[in-house]
């Protein structure tokens, strides 16, 4: 306890972080992407039942009003895009309650950017370029593979064909004995479970690995794929088995977005979670017109972990939650 005042990371990693941030800013400046800031405290928040938020009270005169600490700057950045900002990026703190572990701290640093007129393929190229730049040539290979193919490769199951008995058999074959109890007959949780334990650890051993075309039940803010409505235009980036970031070809349809939010609110209510209400300002921005764009968010603490070969996130944080 007496040593708890000290930073958890080494002074060298402190410098590595500063250099990483400088390179990221240079990368986007050279591509004419504008750096922006948006509030951490907002009246609205994402409704994803798998993300738990922090909330707090703002005292204005006699009244107090509920504000949320943002789980990501997505809604505010899309409001800027709808207002005509053009391509933008942000480096900010994001907050996710209850997430703590070797790769998680409840308060973490996020790099989020949006590219007007980019489709998912262009975004995938850009994120690969960024990571290559940060690793300074040590990492050149990029592997792009669809969710369906990679899931099949490691499980011999088609992620879109949910046949409970063969999925149970797969879990048993891999000694994942708790799967049946945890996932029951929920297709989405089965996907998360098998992907987390059988697929993800094997991704990006020697390369930057991009997984794209996620099953539709795996996303709330991505566009549905035109050619196949069972899939969404979502990409995830993995390196050495670690998930670094998530991107979408962004959903621009306000009505569809509202339907997805309402569905999530229902699920929150069913699970006994607080339902924060819909973010009307965000929905109004979509109605007024979000330009065709793709966006990506990268966890910078994890990226720094990989750049410095650190074993846990605490090795790159000054004061992780336990000693904050």
């Amino acid at each position, binding site marked *: 306890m007496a040593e708890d005042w000290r930073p958890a990371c080494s002074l060298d990693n402190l410098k590595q972080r500063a250099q990483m941030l400088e390179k990221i800013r240079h990368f986007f400046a050279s591509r004419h992407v504008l750096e922006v800031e948006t509030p951490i405290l907002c009246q609205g928040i994402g409704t994803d039942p798998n993300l738990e938020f922090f909330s707090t009270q703002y005292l204005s005169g006699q009244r107090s009003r509920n504000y949320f600490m943002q789980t990501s700057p997505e809604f505010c950045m899309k409001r800027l895009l709808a207002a005509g900002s053009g391509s933008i990026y942000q480096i900010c703190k994001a907050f996710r309650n209850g*997430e703590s*572990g070797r790769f998680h701290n409840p308060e973490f640093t996020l790099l989020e950017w949006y590219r007007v007129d980019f489709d998912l393929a262009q975004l995938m190229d850009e994120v690969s370029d960024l990571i290559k730049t940060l690793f300074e040539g040590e990492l050149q290979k990029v592997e792009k593979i669809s969710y369906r193919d990679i899931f099949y490769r490691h499980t011999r199951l088609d992620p879109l064909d949910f046949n409970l008995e063969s999925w149970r058999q797969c879990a048993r074959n891999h000694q994942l004995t708790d799967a049946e109890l945890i996932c029951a007959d929920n297709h989405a949780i089965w996907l998360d479970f098998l992907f987390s*334990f059988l697929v993800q650890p094997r991704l990006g051993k020697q390369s930057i690995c991009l997984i794209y075309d996620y099953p539709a039940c795996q996303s709330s803010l991505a566009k549905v794929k035109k050619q196949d409505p069972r899939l969404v235009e979502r990409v*995830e980036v993995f390196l050495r088995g670690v*998930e670094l970031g998530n991107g979408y070809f962004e959903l621009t349809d306000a009505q569809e977005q509202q339907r997805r939010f309402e569905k999530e609110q229902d699920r929150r209510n069913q699970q006994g979670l607080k339902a924060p209400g819909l973010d009307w300002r965000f929905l109004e921005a979509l109605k007024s017109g979000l330009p065709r764009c793709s966006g990506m968010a990268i966890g910078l603490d994890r990226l720094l972990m990989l750049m410095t070969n650190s074993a846990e996130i605490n090795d790159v944080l000054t004061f992780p939650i336990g000693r904050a």
Partner: protein
Amino acid sequence: MATYSTNEFKAGLKIMLDNDPCAIIDNEFVKPGKGQAFNRVKIRNLKNGRVIEKTFKSGESVEGADVIDIDIQYLYNDGEFWHFMVPDTFEQYSADEKAVADSKLWLKDQDMCTVTLWNDAPLAVSPPNFVELKVTETDPGLKGDTSGGGGKPATLETGAVVRVPLFVQIDEMIKVDTRTGEYVSRVKE
């Protein structure tokens, strides 16, 4: 007994699993990019010592196990039970063969050891890291041989058998590391 959410999982936490008390050795929070989070946990069953891996859905709660470690003095063995006493309170506990297990080879009257209690009954006994025991049986060996090479087996007063250097004689006291079962040194009386 309290319940613990997966958020509170950490090494050392004692929980109930399939009606057995267990200790968490390692806890890994696993979350796919978006979606359901899990806790992958390495757990030692405190009754049989076996280590298993188990996965929980994050946010789930499990019952805590009423397990504590106490420092306690070993008194005697009556042939069936091993008896212990808390020196300050004179409170006595008796442990059966299963709880004492291999530790019985290192238990000497009056020595302080650690007893793990589950619902106030001894579940496991750990001897001190070092004990001093008398040699009751060993080959006389050659007088004057101090090379120390090779060594020989020696039976101690508790029945334990350890390898000792050739110069160690019957009735001498020796110091043993109970974690490895290895001879450390002779003890001058």
